[in-house]
């Protein structure tokens, strides 16, 4: 039995300690907004925040997470889709199939919390998530829109 803090709630999970955090979140905590895309930390679809940092949860075993660490998933980024990144995404109709977007949004939110006015180079360096539909230019525009909103420090 392991104790996790997910989206502000303390949850007890019964999973082998080698289980990737991604699958603990999906199959034990029951939150499926965090996606499996590759399992080898290449695509970023599984991105969550641990203590505010963007982390690829497919590459983090349960044993590496402590009860004190605050895990935030896409479901916990805002109660109602009102995080500035989510609002910018909505304003620009960013998603196509949408499957990679929870990871994109979590990566973008972490970037903006650390760099409220990211340059294109900052965005290139931090946003390495894969989108096969090809939403990259709208993702970039939405990050800039959220940055202009000036309230991206949340989350």
């Amino acid at each position, binding site marked *: 039995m392991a104790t996790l803090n997910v989206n502000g709630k303390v949850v007890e999970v019964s*999973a*082998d300690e080698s*289980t*990737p955090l991604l*699958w603990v979140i*999906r*199959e*034990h905590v*029951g*939150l*499926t*907004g*965090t*996606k*499996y*895309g*590759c*399992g*080898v930390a*290449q*695509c970023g*679809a599984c991105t969550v925040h641990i203590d505010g940092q963007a982390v690829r949860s497919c590459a983090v075993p349960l044993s590496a997470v402590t009860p004190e660490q605050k895990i935030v*998933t*896409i*479901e916990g*980024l*805002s109660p109602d*889709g009102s995080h500035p990144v*989510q609002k910018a*995404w*909505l304003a620009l*109709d*960013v*998603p*196509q*199939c*949408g*499957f*990679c*977007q*929870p990871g994109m*949004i979590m990566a973008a939110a972490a970037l903006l919390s650390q760099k409220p006015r990211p340059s294109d180079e900052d*965005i*290139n*360096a931090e*946003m*390495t*998530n*894969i*989108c*096969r*539909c*090809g*939403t*990259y*230019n*709208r*993702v*970039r525009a939405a990050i800039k829109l959220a940055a202009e909103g000036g309230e991206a420090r949340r989350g």
Partner: protein
Amino acid sequence: MTTALELSRRHFLAGSAAMGGLSLGFHVPFAGEAAAQGAAPEINAWVVVKPDDTVVVRIARSEMGQGTLTGLAQLVAEELECDWSKVTTEYPTPGQNVARNRVWGSFSTGGSRGIRESQDYVRKGGAAARMMLIQAAANQWGVPASECTAAKSVISHAASGRTVTFGQVAAAAAKLEPPKDVTLKDPKDWKIAGKPLKRLDTADKLTGKQVYGMDLKLPGMLNAAIKDCPVFGGKVKSFDAAKIQSMPGVRKVVPVGDSAVAVVADTWWQAKTALDALPIVWDEGPNAKVSSETIAEMLKAGLDSNDAVFVGNAVGDARAAIATAARTVEAIYSYPFQNHACMEVMNATALYTPERCEVWTPTQNGEAALAAASEASGLPISKCDVHKIHLGGGFGRRGAVHDWVRQVVAIAKEMPGTPVKLIWSREEDMLHGRYHPVTQCRLVGALDASGNLTGLHMRISGQSIVAGIFPQNLQNGRDTVVFQGLNPTGPEAAIGYTIPNLLIDHAMRNTHVPPGFWRGVNLNHNAIYLECFMDELAHAAGQDPLAFRRKLMAHHPKHLAVLNAVAEGIGWGSPAPAGVYRGLAQTMGFGSYVAGAAEVSVSDDGKLKIHRIVAATDPGHAVNPDQIAAQVEGSFVYGLSACLYGECTVKDGRIEQENFDTYNVLRMDEMPKVETIILPSGGFWGGVGEPTIAVAAPAVLNAIFAATGKRIRSLPLKHHDLRRA
């Protein structure tokens, strides 16, 4: 009129109850909700209006990111004259379609056909529903329907000043006979269609609420992981289930067909962990020695062969023109296998009993998935159904072949009454794709003394997708899809040049690696071959590549119009920024005319930067310009990923690339600016999901030649040293 829908839902619920343990409380994306709940009258198959004026538009095609769901709803809403803010959508199931004599037509969502192929009947569905709603209001008021009008879900009788909402007359309208004659609006009068409206499916994609197939949960559901023989055509020789039976969560080890083994466990991670530990001995079969090299040799031999050669386009006598030419130019190009690599790996959930089989899956063709479920379960189609879920990417992988549906049904059949969700690992997805066909192409051009193109022979050697998937559709052995973009004429994919002596033929050379329809399909390599070679010919003739093309395009005004548009957009003929070079390409496919112009630079150490691409597309009619722009941008990411990195190589009969670490794709740092020009010239309906993908690579490759003097004739670019010679 809702009988079939209600029956279908009751059928499932009754069946569920009989299996025990399944309650109504779980959240499953059922189709047919609105009609099944009884309160909402179905005006016709396409339109349901609830008493609160909510309009439910039924969507038969699948939403996989391409925006078709929103576009089709716009077309229905346009004719319905409803309030767009009240529009929602739902998928009918393929089982309901079969039960209702295919009232929704085709469910197939590929070939960029979602809108262009169904626009006529969905618009008529919207228009007929409007007429019935107006008639119901007119009957209520005792006035002629011709005196009533509808706008924004309100019907008005101007003479008396009376109004009524759609929701208030929907029940009465649903009882009326549908009109026999329906007139559609002139697109120039559109108010909802043709506008850059926001997508209907965005909100849930931002919060994690959107349930994809991989996310589905059913009570009592178990999870399965699968391994199919990594060598195509191989089989399972043996496996030692006892070795993993006591691992955590493991419920069952199931052979699937004669080539695969699945592990069913409480969680998917447990299933995968146990499967990875399962000793499996493969009988690799007759293809165990095949490699990329042996395949390339076979294709190369096809470049000169007269065996199994099919003609796609023949004008005059190309061979004679080449033999007598003042000058000839010759080049050999090639294009590799590529995986679709949808972000969401293949998956499906099945619930089987001896009486009924239900499947939930992301599919580009619900009816094909239904047929697969029926065959795999051994139950007639009337006892099966498929519940469609928005796709986490499709790109052609989830349309023609439903191998994963057959698998999940075979597994579920071993566990009657228990829902089983099968998720492929990314490695399984990479090793068992339906790959972009592999081809080579020899082009020989004949130039006269003035540098005019007098003859061209284009010999394509390689795989036929149709032979691999629908061999019954071959025409006397010929795969007509091979000649996409190269056809003499026609509304689908005609060549844009008039060449006095032309021969385009195909030496069919199929491999054991299964081919599939891969976004853009054959147009991808055909456009590279022809458009890069046009560039070669222009340079050989000492002519500007745009001017050289234009001379051949006088009889192809639509092709020429999009080419001219991108030439103007990129500033062709005016100086580029220092160190920046340009390339052009045009083609026609999926009913649309497209062109692209790229600006690139190549650093001294050979690093490519694609600065921008200007794209023009003439799809005849533009239903949602903002989503067309999204498709154009997205298609370039797909096409440039293929151009820069996309390659699946074969060794010992199997694909070597198992994940994104060895199958890289374009990411944000390499994404060029994209400027989309939409030139809907009217009079026809073309697709927009695929055609522009084909011009990305040749425009970039031609720009690379301009920058470096290096002619790239094989992909991907990652194998080439781009430093200037």
